[in-house]
């Protein structure tokens, strides 16, 4: 029992980071699942993070902190969607990357809201049960979405926009909803991240986290909501596991190599519904062959 509690004590923060990264990955996934590669989750997270941090400093309760962060994320995501949805997917990726660059400059130059270069201390550690609750709720919401009209429509949209349009799917509407969900989840994730780090600065929400989100999502698989969660957990745990085998200097290199190997050998990610279906179909197909023979 002592062993278990020791294990928990040493890995507690890893688990917390994996959970927050899951939120970010889910936020990236929902837009990706609607056919857009977008880095704008970083922006939503920055808004949620700084709004949340300011409210925590003022002593507001956690439900309101998360509520405001979600609202802020939603608001900014709808704004981004209104402007960016005119672009096609290549340009969307580039424009959202530009937006991440601009976000850092804006946060650097608005010290009244963000603390500028010095950053912002957050005088509240995020309770683990809150984080777990938020993640469970989010995952349940994604489960419901997956089986909803929106989930089906966005999958069709991603596979073939023309087919989706022929089936009467309103492309703009689906994309707008996807961005809205991404904004809410990203904002909540940002607030959770701020309370987890207990310190945020303009560099917190920059390219590093942007690439982490995308990498975790693709690593886990972007064809099912469970993929991003698995990806975030693996991506967060990987450096910790590596620590045991590799010197500190080579860890980042090893992370890159793992990501590279996954892209080459498992391009659809760890969780791939199509592979499962193919595997299920395989015995049946073999049976057909036997009958024909």
């Amino acid at each position: 029992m002592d062993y278990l509690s020791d294990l928990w004590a040493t890995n507690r923060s890893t688990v917390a980071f994996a959970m927050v990264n899951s939120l970010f990955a889910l936020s990236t996934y929902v837009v990706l699942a609607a056919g857009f590669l977008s880095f704008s989750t970083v922006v939503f997270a920055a808004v949620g993070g700084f709004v949340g941090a300011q409210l925590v400093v003022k002593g507001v309760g956690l439900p309101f902190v998360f509520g405001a962060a979600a609202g802020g994320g939603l608001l900014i995501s709808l704004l981004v969607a209104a402007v960016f949805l005119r672009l096609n997917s290549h340009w969307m990726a580039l424009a959202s990357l530009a937006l991440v660059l601009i976000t850092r400059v804006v946060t650097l130059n608005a010290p009244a809201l963000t603390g500028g270069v010095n950053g912002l201390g957050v005088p509240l550690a995020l309770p683990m049960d809150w984080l777990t609750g938020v993640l469970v709720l989010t995952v349940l919401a994604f489960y419901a979405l997956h089986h909803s009209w929106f989930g089906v429509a966005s999958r069709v949209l991603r596979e073939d926009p023309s087919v989706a349009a022929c089936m009467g799917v309103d492309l703009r509407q689906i994309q707008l909803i996807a961005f809205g969900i991404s904004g809410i989840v990203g904002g909540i994730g940002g607030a959770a991240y701020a309370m987890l780090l207990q310190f945020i600065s303009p560099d917190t929400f920059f390219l590093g986290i942007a690439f982490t989100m995308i990498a975790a999502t693709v690593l886990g698989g972007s064809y099912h909501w469970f993929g991003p969660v698995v990806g975030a957990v693996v991506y967060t745990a990987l450096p910790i596991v590596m620590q045991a085998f590799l010197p500190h200097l080579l860890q980042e290199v090893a992370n890159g190599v793992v990501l590279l190997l996954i892209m080459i050998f498992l391009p659809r990610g760890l969780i791939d519904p199509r592979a499962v279906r193919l595997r299920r179909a395989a015995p049946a197909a073999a049976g057909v062959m036997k009958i024909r023979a």
Partner: protein
Amino acid sequence: MELFASQLLNGLALGSLCGLFGIGFGLVFATLGILNAAQGCYASWAAIIGLAAAEKMGAPFPLIMLAGMGGAAAVAVAVDQLGFQPLRTRGADMLGALITSIAFWMILDSLAGFATGQQSLSFPSTSYPGQMLLTEPVPLPAMQLITIAVLVAVAVGMHLLMTRSSVGSAIRAVGWNPVAAALGGVNSRSIILLTAALSGAISGLAGTLGGVLTSNVSFTLGQGLLLKGFAAVVVGGYSDVRGTAIAGVILGILEVFVGQYISTALRDAFTYSLLLVFLLVKPQGLFGKGSLVRA
């Protein structure tokens, strides 16, 4: 007035670096369809290799440049063959290539940090022409003039290569459709290798020059060039070498002037806002044809 003129020169030199890097970056983006996040690392590694040539072998300046270019070209070809070729054979989309390039970014950047001992190094002052060509009416360092001249030479050369030569047609054909190019008698495998090497060499040239000019040889050199070069490519129109070069120079000058006369804090804001405005309003850029199929 003297301040204005010397800042104009600074802007020109800085912009030339961005434009030069952007030409390499845009070549891969326009022809191979890869948004290569690892391109900045080629520049960092070129500077590191150039520095090694200067310190370990006491190579003269032109050889340092060549060493940087060659090293970056080799890295670019290795990245392409190890990372992008498997995706290409599978017919994967742009997203896969972007993630792969991010993986290479992580690998090459941390190796670069390892190579420089997590410090910013600089070239020994004897390894490059450090003298002033003029002191009156404005100070004109030789390196600034060299940088500007290199940009002009590379931009003109690349433009002629891409538009007037059969190799250029082959590169554009492979970029448009590798199968059709192969049917037309183009060896797409070697053209892809050539494109990767060329793009690596140009970015490497920008990196080595940048390492000398800014006295900063570390992984941050490549990151800075990547962001500014990316802006130059988008603003200029990535299908046109001239556009990238001109946009790079304009952005460099604007950046220096905004920093000098308006506010240092707004330097980057200005560049990136311009980038965003172009993406939204005129995604084909200043000089682009906009004929590319936008999937």
